[in-house]
């Protein structure tokens, strides 16, 4: 089913009606581990005032997306775009779609006067770290601390 890969890729803002297509990509990536749930996507409020999510379309279907949200970081409070999830259909990888999604997100943020984009990445995920570095992201000094509950 992956023969037609020449389709032109267009990037547009995510809308509420895209939720099923987005979940379908998530399910294609792994049958055992879902990255996203419907409830979470609805909570993201695609198309809402704080939403900065985009989808990539090729061959008349959604083949990738970035979930991002306008967030306030203090102190002093500044506006930041936070990238929550970036996924591309396995059949459409290595075509620069992630790059296009992040570039579009960046330029929209710039137009909106949002001065920073951020993403939280697993320290051991070299591929993702390299991608963000290539996209001009730099590692900050923030690291996460976790308290887990037994059982």
């Amino acid at each position, binding site marked *: 089913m992956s023969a037609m890969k020449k389709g032109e890729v267009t990037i547009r803002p995510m809308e509420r009606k895209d939720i099923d297509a987005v979940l379908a990509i998530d399910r294609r990536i792994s049958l055992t*581990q*879902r*990255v*996203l*749930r419907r409830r*979470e996507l609805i*909570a993201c409020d695609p198309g809402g*005032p*704080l939403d900065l999510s985009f989808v990539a379309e090729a061959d008349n279907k959604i083949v990738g997306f970035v979930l991002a*949200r*306008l*967030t*306030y*970081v*203090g*102190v*002093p*409070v500044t506006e*930041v775009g*936070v990238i929550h999830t970036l996924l591309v259909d396995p059949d459409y990888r290595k075509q620069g779609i992630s790059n296009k999604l992040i570039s579009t997100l*960046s330029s929209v*943020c*710039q137009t909106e006067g*949002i*001065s*920073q*984009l*951020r*993403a*939280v*990445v*697993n*320290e*051991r995920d070299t591929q993702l*770290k390299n991608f*963000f*570095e290539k*996209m*001009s*992201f*730099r*590692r*900050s*000094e*923030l*690291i*996460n*601390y*976790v*308290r*887990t*509950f037994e059982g």
Partner: protein
Amino acid sequence: MASLERGEPKVRIRPMEHEDIDSVLTIDRKITGRRRAVTYTELITGDLGGVLALSLVAEVDGVVQGFVLARRIYVVTPPGEVGLIQILGVDPDYQRRGIATKLVNALLDTCRAKKLSAVRIMINARDSQLVGLFEHLGFRRGELVDYTRTL
């Protein structure tokens, strides 16, 4: 109006309500420019409804003197819902009285009761005071790091 009494202040921890936002912002402003090491500043998301889900305030003699803004988020590894601390703030006049510890402990209790699997926070690795506080509260360093792009 700051109480000059020595010893244990009467601290009451309760869920944050919409009416508390002014008090929270007042504390936030008071912290600005003062000993950043004592403050943790992360994401205040715009949707207060979401934030209020887990957020708590600390009252001393009936006045809000500290707060923790936290929300539920879905994470991939391990898959499930966790609590994310966004900001922990205590009025500088009321610091060093164990209020931050009480707030975080109360949040841990709430998250445990809601069957969340963990509580997370992003902190500056160089902020040894804050790192020390969270390690003391049973938090351990995770694998997530932050990547930022300035636009």
